[in-house]
């Protein structure tokens, strides 16, 4: 259906852990230079898809294609120079400073004797600038607030300087201001030509900032396309089991989901107290 070009896609790929299959024969293409948002209820296979697209998880059948070739045919470092991933849970080593942590993102560009080139330094400075953490660069990560820390992790992923950036729930645990700041940063990145893919929980944020939406349920892609096509009352009920009204966002005009709730006859039939 899509006429976009794509560098990264899953081609009837089956993902799972041990013998438990999460997604079967999943085909999904990430449009180049898009800001793609993946939405869906908990445990629908969103994170698994990101892990598959970044080669952290090998498909048991089918394949993931990066730049026209099976992603498994690349050297590990080469994948890391093309596709970046910010996982949900990362650990900051005790006593690490902000700049030191951001600099760790340069790993795939470095070697034993080339650990800190001028290019590394510039990429790290730029990544901190983009995420507005330059002033924090000498601070200990342990001492930062949750919002600041999340921006540090995003900066680390930016410093990796990949054309494609995958983010697993980057806005979770952030207050609303920091969520919007981060989403606008992703918009900036996408506008200068990077491909950004984020798993988001907030449908309204996804619809407002995403240029391309992928809705998943039970390991399958239920719908994909522009937010206006994907976010409809029918689809929200199908995917999330939530009856709602979809109205235009008063600022951006993008679809906005307003739950009907129980008192408006929106009982989903699942909860009877």
């Amino acid at each position, binding site marked *: 259906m899509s006429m976009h070009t794509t560098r990264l896609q899953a081609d009837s790929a089956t993902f799972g852990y041990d013998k438990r299959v999460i997604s079967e024969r999943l085909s999904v293409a990430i449009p180049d230079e898009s800001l793609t948002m993946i939405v869906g209820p908990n445990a629908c296979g969103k994170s698994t898809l990101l892990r598959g697209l970044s080669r952290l998880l090998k498909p048991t059948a089918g394949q993931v294609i990066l730049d026209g070739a099976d992603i498994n045919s690349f050297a590990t470092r080469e994948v890391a120079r093309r596709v970046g991933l910010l*996982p949900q849970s990362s*650990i900051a080593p005790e*006593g690490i400073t902000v700049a030191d942590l951001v600099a760790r993102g340069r790993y795939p560009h470095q070697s034993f004797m*080339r650990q800190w080139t001028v290019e590394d330094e*510039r990429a790290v400075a*730029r990544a901190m600038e983009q995420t507005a953490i330059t002033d924090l*660069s000498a601070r*200990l990560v342990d001492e930062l607030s949750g919002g600041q820390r999340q921006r540090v992790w995003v900066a680390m992923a930016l410093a990796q300087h990949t054309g494609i950036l995958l983010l697993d729930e980057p806005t979770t645990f952030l207050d609303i201001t920091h969520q919007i700041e981060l989403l606008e940063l992703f918009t900036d*990145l996408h506008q200068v030509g990077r491909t950004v893919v984020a798993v988001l929980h907030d449908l309204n944020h996804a619809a407002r900032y995403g240029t391309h939406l992928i809705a998943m349920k039970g390991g399958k892609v239920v719908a994909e396309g522009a937010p206006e096509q994907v976010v409809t009352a029918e689809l929200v009920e199908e995917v999330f089991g939530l009856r709602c009204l979809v109205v235009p966002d008063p600022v951006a005009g993008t679809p906005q989901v307003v739950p009907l709730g129980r008192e408006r006859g929106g009982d989903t039939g699942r909860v009877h107290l």
Partner: protein
Amino acid sequence: MIEHTHPSVLADSKARVQFGRRMLVLRRGSMAVRLEWRSIIVCLAVAGAIVVLVVLALMTGSYPLSPAQVISALAGGETSLIHDIVVEWRLPRVAAAVVFGAALGVSGAIFQSLLRNPLADPGIIGFSQGAYTGALIVILLVNGSYLQLVAGALVGGVATAVAVYVLAYRRGAQGFRMIVVGIGISAMLGSLNTWLILKADLDQALAAAAWGAGSLNGVSWDQVVIGGACIVVLVPLAASLSRPMRQMELGDDSAAAQGVRVAPIRLALIVVAVALTATVTAASGPIAFISLVAPQIGRRLARTAGITLAPAAFIGALLCLLADYIAQHAAPTPLPVGIITVILGGGYLGWLLFVEGRRRL
């Protein structure tokens, strides 16, 4: 605004990153290295202390010598008696303390980094208890020679480490699973060891206890050279793995996303760390606590992010040397070095719990 597409497009050349720490950046040709000044200074200072303690240890004994005599003996300019005392009798032991201590420090640093746990060392995946079981079996069942005892200990230790690794393996060996399985296996082997000692007669039990305490008493040049050769191969190997090792401190997924091949790197690191401890164990018996304590002291002195190998190696060497000096000269009767390291390590652990406990309150 944001620039992109290719790193070289990043035009801003005045970019200077403030790390909050003084960095030494060496860029020459294709080489570009960044080191923390504080780590360099700590390592140099500890190296200086090691040199002083080495000379002191070579001076001390039932035949006291002056620093000048020690230095000229090392340079080959003394009478044959003094030369023998310094180079043949005292130096092997001192060299062993330095080299083995450094090996234990590196081994502990690798485990603490891999398992992200300040209380980790090769003992946590059962190496120590397994080695003791192997030694006991040789002493009790075979009544074997010292060499057989060493072989038994190595087989026991390595077999236990392999067993723990395999039992903990599920979608790659995960740190937490290894700790849990290691504690379980160690507890089982610990009771087996107690039972074996209870079955033994007094002489055998004493021999086992003497080996189990860990001592540099009988160390000869042969052992130092063979052990040292292994360590000289293993330490650079560890250093070459240190970059991915530190990347893995960010979590397996982060490291993998940045191009680290997590599973093979972790296996390689475990093999190197176990081999380092096994080398020391073969030469001197188990010397406890240095692998546990050295990385933590090194990290606190150098204030590095996470665990780094070099400070752990230098501190390990200094600690082992100091413990052996105390064991030999400060105690009323010469003690095995292992006893002193247990005392030092126990004190350190108590202090760590005290400090951490106060910080939490």
